[in-house]
């Protein structure tokens, strides 16, 4: 083999080896979606379960609407309580982390590098406060009947999507899965489809649109990140094992 071919081969080996670090980093980032996936799936499963129960129970309580209303309200309170438990409560957060790690336990543990946030903390706090105010305003105006129920999701997109973007910029520490960047894109696309009265979306009520855009797409993105992490790990293993005998 000529010296030039040997040099080219060494160059390719070097490039492949340097790819190892990039794949390891990417895999570690995708793993951060684990707890988020678990949380989304819990909420989606609960809401679908409650809807299924209502659907099954409805024929037996026809005419006794108060029973249905009580069931629906009870279900909503349960979903809210579980969501708050996992979102705010420290124990809930730890449980999510533990269950999220179990998704990847078979591969061993790896922690992603912490990188500095792209925005200062005060800016994120300001964005979070603005989001909270807008959300509260939308709920109040919606209950009072000033906002059309049908367009609740597109209206929420006006303040929710910028907040998701701020959240992504802030949460670069620790670095999250790049797939999470799809969430504001899907949320916006959904809002446009609802606002432009696309036939497929017309029959769906405003509450369901909100549910799909938040928890539905959240679960989908969590799942995408998980699948991506498995593919990335497979590539990493192929790369690190195939050249293990070369010096």
């Amino acid at each position, binding site marked *: 083999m000529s010296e030039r071919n040997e040099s080219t081969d*060494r160059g390719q080996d070097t490039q492949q*080896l*340097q790819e190892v670090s990039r794949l390891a980093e990417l895999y570690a980032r995708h793993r951060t979606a684990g707890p988020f996936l678990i949380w989304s799936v819990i909420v989606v499963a609960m809401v679908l379960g409650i809807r299924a129960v209502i659907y099954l129970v409805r024929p037996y309580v026809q005419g006794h609407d108060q029973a249905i209303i009580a069931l629906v309200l009870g279900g909503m309170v349960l979903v809210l309580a579980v969501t708050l438990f996992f979102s705010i409560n420290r124990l809930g957060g730890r449980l999510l982390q533990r269950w999220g790690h179990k998704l990847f336990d078979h*591969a061993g543990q790896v922690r992603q590098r912490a990188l500095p946030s792209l925005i200062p903390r005060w800016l994120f706090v300001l964005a979070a406060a603005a989001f909270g105010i807008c959300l509260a305003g939308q709920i109040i105006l919606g209950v009072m009947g000033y906002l059309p129920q049908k367009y609740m999701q597109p209206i929420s997109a006006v303040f929710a999507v910028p907040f998701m973007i701020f959240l992504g910029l802030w949460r670069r520490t620790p670095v999250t899965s790049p797939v999470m960047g799809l969430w504001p894109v899907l949320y916006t696309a959904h809002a446009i489809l609802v606002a432009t009265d696309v036939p497929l979306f017309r029959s769906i009520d405003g509450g369901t649109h909100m549910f799909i855009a938040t928890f539905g797409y959240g679960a989908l993105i969590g799942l995408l990140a998980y699948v991506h992490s498995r593919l990335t790990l497979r590539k990493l293993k192929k790369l690190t094992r195939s050249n*293990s005998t070369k010096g």
Partner: protein
Amino acid sequence: MNLDRVIHEPVRLRIMMILAGVASADFNFLRNTLALTNGNLSSHMDRLERTGYVAVTKSFNGKVPHTSYQLTEAGQTALDDYWAQLDEIRNLDADRGQ
């Protein structure tokens, strides 16, 4: 030009490249990813730790011992120097080829 023999060994180079991309990785992850036996990986990690390129943290997950590794600053510098030396060698080869 003497390449760092600790890093130049193929398995240890791959270990260091993985650790260079993450904050830390545990024993199981390195073993599963590199398809090594426990003994083989342990001996490589011992060598890297003795050289100061890798820091070890031992803890327990419940009753199960857990060992994780991270690349030290010295390890990162040594790795950067290693790649720089390889680039020099490649450039020399290319010049000779011309």
